[in-house]
């Protein structure tokens, strides 16, 4: 049955390529969800390295420094339990309603200088459109 063997061979090449594609892309794009406490704790142990992180916390309003000429935003986030803060640097535009106490989610990496270098800053305003139960 050489025909069937050829078919099976072709399929396994295909599957192999697909598997390789999945695994290699997966490792590049893996992002860990963490809280600020987890970030600082892991950073102390030097475990974060070059990992992509997604960190949520609350904005410290008075820490916001926005420089429109350089398009650079610096601010601090504070953990839910108010114990740990994390400084963030974002080379981008200040989001609307960037006020004290709103929920902020940042995507990026934690650098050795202990600053979170964000690629993306998202805000979640306490919207009344979401059903509150």
């Amino acid at each position, binding site marked *: 049955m050489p*025909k069937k063997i*050829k*078919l099976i061979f*072709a*399929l396994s090449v*295909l599957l192999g390529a*697909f598997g390789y*594609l*999945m695994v*290699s*892309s*997966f490792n*590049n*794009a*893996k*992002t*860990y*969800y963490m809280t600020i406490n987890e970030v600082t704790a892991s950073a102390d142990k030097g475990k974060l390295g070059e990992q*992509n992180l*997604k960190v949520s916390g609350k904005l410290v309003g008075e820490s916001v420094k926005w420089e*429109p*000429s350089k*398009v650079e935003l610096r601010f601090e986030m504070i953990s839910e339990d108010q114990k740990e803060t994390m400084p963030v640097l974002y080379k*981008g*535009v*200040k989001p*609307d*309603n960037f006020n004290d106490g709103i929920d902020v989610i940042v*995507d990026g990496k934690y650098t050795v200088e202990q600053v979170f270098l964000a690629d993306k800053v998202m805000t979640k*305003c306490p*919207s*009344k*459109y*979401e*059903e*509150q*139960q």
Partner: protein
Amino acid sequence: MANIGTIGLSIAFGMGIYSVVAFFLFNSNRGLKYLLSAKNAVYGTALFTTISVLAMLYALITGDFSIEYVTQYTSQDLPAIYKLTALWAGNAGSLLFWAWILVLLAALVTVSKENREYIPYASPIMMVVSVFFLFMLNFVSQPFVQLLSPPPDGMGMNPMLQNPGMVIHPVTLYLGYVGFTVPFAFAMAALIMKNPGDQWIKLTRKWTLISWLFLTLGNLFGAQWAYVELGWGGYWAWDPVENASLMPWLTGSAFLHSVMVQERKNMLKIWNMVLIIVTFGLTLFGTFLVRSGVVASVHAFGNSSLGAYFLIFTSLIILAALYLVADRINLLRQGNQFESYISKESSFLLNNLLLVGSAFSIFWGTVFPIVSEAVVGQKIAVGIPFFNQVNAPIGLAFTLLMGICPLIAWRKANFENIAKNFLWPWIIAIIGMLVMVFIGGITKPYALIAYTICVFVISSTLQDILKGVRVRKKLTGENLIVSLIRLLSKNRRRYGGYVIHMGIVMMIVGITGSNVFNSEAVKTFKPGETAVVGDYTISFKGLQQTSRDNMEVIYADLRVIKNNYDMGNLQVEKVFYSTSEQPMTEPAIISTFKEDFYVLLTGWEDDGSAIFKIHINPQIKWLWTGGWVIVIGVIFALWPGKGSGVGSRYLGRGEVSYGKRVS
């Protein structure tokens, strides 16, 4: 109104259950009267659901704030069109809308004479799904809950939803989602009736193609809406909810192709069954993702308990369907085998594997955060690069196949023929590539490969049409135009497919251009300042303020000059709705086939200077235009009359009759 709606829904629920029972009684030989009565119950369900929907629409348009749903999603100053679209703005309303489309489809299927044999099995399956939705509407997510003390005004609609996209995107997407229930029901009916031939495929072809079209449009309108409303300059973010609507599109596309192999070659029967089950399952899974709150997404409805019900129902119906396939596996096994690894059917199989592989990778990436949290306790997401890196090569391979599949022979093709057939398309593609490199100056490998493949697909498709015209001209002596028109209109299924392929190629061009060559810049302008970005000269005079309807608007008129050509004034806005704290940033776009100039007002300073973000997005217009080309292709293929049937030359030799094959 609330009472009419509630009563309508409970009667519909009761009638739905009755219809399923009556169909069951008819199927166990209790007499024809049960069939008639079951059919009437289907129509009754449709009627009473329609009454509820009308009651809801009436309540929305008149602003009946005694109904909680109306209060939550509308306000008095909301424009009338958005009051109506509030029907699908919230959880309960969108379920009602879904159920409504579903029962209308069930009624349409039941009334059709063409489906006579299948109705006793296909209709109750559709009704089981309808009953599930009606159950949810009656007991879990009731749309007509009343407030004891009605407020004077409602809370208003989320500003992001106040966009023409809200009118058309959910409607097309839901029609697509719900439409796939029809082929699923017929597939299951065929299994129950032990009729594993291609009859169910023929009967549902129209439904499948139209559902697929709506799903395509739903995805495209959604992308376009995101592009003009969310203000990040892109149209697709691999958000879980976007993925939820893309996955059934991919498996549905695979299904559309692999059923042709069953029709022509009487093979891949098990595969087709599994594909339609998976596609139907994915449409329900999408609903689960959107409503369960298990994934964070801009599109998701708030957390609710609906998710669990959907998960349980979806699992049950999929398990039942798979059990049925397993039980009838011997019937499905009968049929032909692959005769050659290089043939049209094997190229279709490859196309299927690519589409399903792509759907699988998206599924994996979408559910991974849930899985990782459950298994290792750490929530790990996969970012956009994962989806792009996996799906870009798959997409290119898939596009390449679009140029190859239609031209190679059924059963057994040989290399010499293939080499001969594809000689010119490859020569043209390579010339095209050289032109792009040396004249167009394109050096990015991904774009170059993608464009070259697109040129290949276009030229191989045109070559095939040309060949057909030449043969026809020789045989009939007609002139070129007449024979072209007759050739196309006599094989509308085939050439409609070609038109759809051209639409997809245009979309691939748009996706490639906008992803590979996009650029962005952020600039702070002082009043009166002028700056140059790419080919564009932008002057800013100052910010202004105005108010309209239910909003306050801060805006800037930007004067844009492109290559010495005055493009006029662009009004870029930041809109503050009275019902929302979060302002909306409305982009202004100049769209051409070469590129989109996309500008956002992102903020301002006390000294009157304003910050603008400018995106240059090449070729996006190709993506939207490709969508319209697909619409033309589908209409061309489906338009009733001669030439839309399946017994065309596309199937090669051998006439096909219902259920069995005569060749």
